[in-house]
Every structure is written in C-alpha cells, then in structure tokens.
C-alpha cells in the first residue's frame, strides 16, 4: 500500500500544484480494467458481475455513469470511491489506489453525495456541513476558524448560506440536497461522487443542482462522477459518459458519440429518438411502447 506524504489542498488556487504521481499528468481519476463480482460464497454462481472496464477523467470534468437499473452503476461508484476493492484491475486517484487509502485520507480526497440519509437526532445545517471537516481535524476535532470558513464557503457555493441556522429536518428536499452537496464540498475533495443526486428533486431543482455542479467543477477543478439514469440531463451536462448494461460497459465517450439511437434503445428497452441541439448536445425524446 502506498501512503502519500502530504495532504492535497484541492482548492481552485492550488489544485494545479497537486501533481499526479504516475502516468499522464492531466489524468486525475484512472479506472484500469476494474471488475467486481458479488457472490454469496465462492462455490456458488455470482449474483452480479461487473466486467472489467476502463476510463480516465481529468480535473474539471463531469463523468456520467449511465444505465438502467441493475446495470452496475452503483457497484462502479463503490469501486471508484474505494468502498469496494476491485476483483481485478485498479482504480487510481492521482496515482493512489482508492481502496487502499485509510478512511481519513480517502475522505480528504473523495467526497460522496449519497441519496439522502435519515437523521437519528435533529441537527442544524451548519453542524451537518461541518461534518465534512471531520477528516481534516485532529484529536477531538474541535472545529477551527478555518473549518468554519470552509463550511461557510461551501454553503455559499451551493447558494445555501441562508439555511445555515435552520434544522435539517425542516428544509425542503431540494434545499437538503444542496446542503448535502455543501458538506461534500467542505471535504475539499479532488473527486466528487454523486449517487443519483436528482432522484427526489423536481425539474427546476434538478437543473439548479446540475448547473451548480458544472460551475463548481470548472471553478474548483473537481473531477465529478455522477451516477444517473436521466438521459437528457446526462446529454446536457456530462463531458464523458460511461454507458453500462447488465454489468457490461458498452461505450465510453463524449455524449454525442455515446447517444446513438440504436444503442440507447437497446440499453433502455424503449423506443426513442436522439437529436442534436444547436450547442452540439444530444437530446433524447422517448415514445410510448404501444
């Protein structure tokens, strides 16, 4: 296991100083022939297999992992986050295998925004966002002035500064999603992972959230990986798409190259049409099966 000697501070100002340690210096995330098998025990047939797949992502890039249910999207996200060790192949973040980092180092580099979790005891928005500073603290982790500043900036970046003193269980779904994103930003990660971030949001809030993500990825040079099955949002916002079906990676590339009518119809089992907008982004129209 390789242990990095210093803690990266991936703010906009100094992320360029954080040089990758191996391979192409422009690549931050590198998934190399990573695969995974879920099996209840070794003698039985596997329940699910994610076949070996590879892709790379640069700072500031938004990668969408797209596919129908049970296509392996969440498994791939777990491999990237380091929560699972790949069965074969490797996932590197700036040259370090993500699953072999300690939880603390991992949390300093990778932030995961999951589908909303249930809170056991009510907490204030600011308390929740400060949780993102946990991996940067020492000992009993009384938060420093710097932690407070980072948390405030994170809230400001997602436009939720006015929510600071509200209770987490008294804000709307869209507001909560922003606060969860702010907590991830407070981790000051290199890699921002989002698991179906738009799931419970209305369309306005979905566009809002993805606009913020695009801006944040550009400003802070985050590498963003989003798991989704929203075709049009992927087409509009992603720089790169990883298309999965039943554990197989069918295609990796820019939305315009992945969004082929036949391919998407086969993957999503629905008749659809793909057109290109004036901005060069694909737009998908779905039809009824009947």
């Amino acid at each position, binding site marked *: 296991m390789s242990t990095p000697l210093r803690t990266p501070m991936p703010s906009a100002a100094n992320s360029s100083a954080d040089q990758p340690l191996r391979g192409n210096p422009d690549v931050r995330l590198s998934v190399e022939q990573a695969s995974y098998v879920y099996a209840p025990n070794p003698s039985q047939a596997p329940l699910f297999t994610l076949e070996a797949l590879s892709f790379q992502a640069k700072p500031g890039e938004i990668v969408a992992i797209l596919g129908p249910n049970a296509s392996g999207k969440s498994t791939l996200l777990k491999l990237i*986050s380091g*929560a699972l060790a790949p069965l074969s192949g490797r996932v590197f973040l700036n040259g370090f295998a993500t699953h072999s980092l*300690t*939880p*603390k180092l*991992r*949390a*300093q580099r*990778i*932030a*995961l925004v*999951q589908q909303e*979790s249930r*809170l*056991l*005891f*009510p*907490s204030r928005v*600011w*308390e929740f966002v*400060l*949780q*993102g500073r*946990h*991996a940067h*603290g020492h000992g*009993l*982790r*009384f*938060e420093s002035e710097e*932690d*407070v500043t980072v*948390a*405030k900036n994170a809230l400001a970046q997602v436009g939720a500064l006015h929510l*600071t*003193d509200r209770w987490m269980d008294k804000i709307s779904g869209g507001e909560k999603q922003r606060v969860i994103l702010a907590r991830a930003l407070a*981790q000051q990660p290199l890699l921002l992972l989002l698991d179906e971030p738009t799931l419970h949001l209305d369309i306005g809030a979905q566009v809002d959230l993805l606009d913020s993500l695009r801006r944040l990825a550009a400003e802070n040079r985050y590498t963003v990986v989003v798991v989704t099955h929203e075709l049009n949002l992927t087409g509009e916002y992603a720089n790169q798409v990883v298309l999965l079906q039943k554990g197989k990676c069918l295609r990796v590339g820019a939305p315009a190259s992945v969004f082929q009518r036949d391919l998407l119809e086969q993957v999503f089992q629905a008749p659809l049409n793909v057109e290109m907008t004036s901005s060069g982004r694909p737009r998908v129209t779905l039809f009824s099966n009947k």
Partner: protein
Amino acid sequence: MRPLTLGRLFLRCSILAVILFVVVVIALKLGAVQVSLYGLGRDLIRVLLRQSSSISSDYGLIVLNIRLPRILLAIVVGASLSVAGASFQALLRNPLADPYVLGISSGAAVGSIVALMVENQLALSPEFAGLITPFGAFLGAAVTIAAVYYLGRRDGQIDSTTLLLGGIITASFLSAIIMFLMSTLAGGNLRGASYWMMGSLSTLPPESLLFLLGIGFFVATGAIYTTASDLNLLLAGEKEAMHLGVDVRRVQIVVYLAASILTGLAVSVSGAIGYVGLLVPHAMRMIFGSDHRMLIPSSALGGAIALVIADTIARTVAAPSDLPVGAVTAMVGAPFFIYLLRRRLS
C-alpha cells in the same frame, strides 16, 4: 454557526458539576435521621485545621460512613449507565437503546451471579475474590449485546424495532434465568433476585471493587470520549461515516467494549438499574444538542445527578425502609420510553 469549543464545554460541565455538588449536599442532609450540615461542616473544618482529631458528633458518623459512600456509589453508577446508554444509542443507531431495555444489564446480572457462584467454589482470598464479579458482569454484558445485535439484524441491516423487541425478549429470558438461579442456589453472598432485577444501592460493595469501579469508569469513558466526534458521524450510518473519514470498525469495537465494561461494572455493584441510560442522554440532548463531545461528559454528570436524586427518593420516601432505586427510575423512565416510542412512530 457556533461549533463547540473547549471553553464552552468546560463552562457547561462546570455548571453541571455545581448542580451535582448541590444535589449531593441535599442528599447528605436528607434521610431517616435529620442532620445539621452546618454542624457537620464546622466539625469537618476543625478536623482539617487540626483543631480536633475526629468528628465527634453521631450524625457525622451517619453522614460520612453511611450516606456519603452510598452517594458516591450512586454518582459512579449513574454516570456509567448514562454514558453506556448514550454510547449504545450511537452504536446501534437507536434512540431507544438503553442497557436495561436491551437486556444488557440483565446479562451483566446473570454474569455477576455466575461469577459469585464460581467465587464461592474457588474459595479465593477476599480482596481477589471481589474482582471476579465485575469481570463476569462484563462478559455477561458483552455476550448479551452481541446476541441482541444479531437478533436485531434483518437482511444485514440493524432494524430498530426488531432490535428493541429482541432486547426486551432477551431481558425477559435473562430475568427468568436470574429467578431460576436465585430459587435454586439462594444463600451465601448471592443477594436477592430483586437486587439483581431492580437494582439497589443499599449494599456497599467491598473496597477493592469500588476502586476498580472508579478506575474502570474513567478508562472506559475516556476511551469512548476519544471516539466522540466519530460517533456524531456514525449516527448517519456506517457507510456515510466511512466516506466522511471514520474508521468505523475501530470505533465500533472501542465503543462496544467500553460500554460493556461500564454496564458490567455498574451492574456488578448495584444490580440492573433501568432507564437512567435512556432518560439522561435524551435530557442532555434536549439541553445541549446531540454533539457527542458534549453529550458524553454531560451524560456522565447528568447521570450522577439523576441517580443521586433517585436514590435519595428511594431511601427517604418510605423511610426507614429502603425502596430498590430501580423502582424509582423505572417509574419515571418507563412512561418516558413510551413517550419517545410514540413520538418516533408518529
């Protein structure tokens, strides 16, 4: 945005410590025999200033040799149970977790009784013999919490309702074991079934055990306190805590062992006193919020205050006879448990 600071933590704890001191003074005064604390204080100062060699008055004897040790015992037991309760609530992600409700105290009681039986058979020297009981209680607590944890799992996840039911049934089963052991093996130093099942502070444990109780409390609470900020994140779930940088497995093992030690020690000297570990952490959360860096020390002090008050009621309300203190805590705690359960369901 006002995160907890060390200064604020000390200030709040000092206020609780002052309240504890006042409660202790009142508890010293109350009892079957009325005493004048003024007179006692004057005598004490004289002894300290070496104007007199001993406390002359009779009530001094009552207060210092009978009431004070019992109050000190209440302080350590109350603090241990409250810290254990707060820890189990975080560890099991269940706001209704409490060493008594989950049957952990009953497990510790069975462990204590078995240890006492073994002790009687081995005929060890008295100062050494006393140490087997808390060890048995610790084992009993640790095994019970492991069993309840596995009973409470459904599809690999802890299900809070199943966990509570599993705990309550385990408690009932273990109470039956206690009754069985008491009816078939009664005698010697096993004490009575009501002592183990309801808890009482009326019998002072041997001095070696008291010493162990004090040390054990500080070591176990200290160990839990080192994980306080991790526990805040663990409340959101294991996966989320891991992604925020918590070494989940390490925290779980530390808290599991330390909370079992606290429960075991408390039960081995006072039986299964219920609901302190439920009531006190909830009250402290209402006052100070749910940050464990504040919750653990405030629960320790609050638990001490609560049990000193409860025990004072237990020994004065039907004086000169002594109620089991567990009866007093259950009369307040059980309705509170129902209230929390209803609120959660709604």
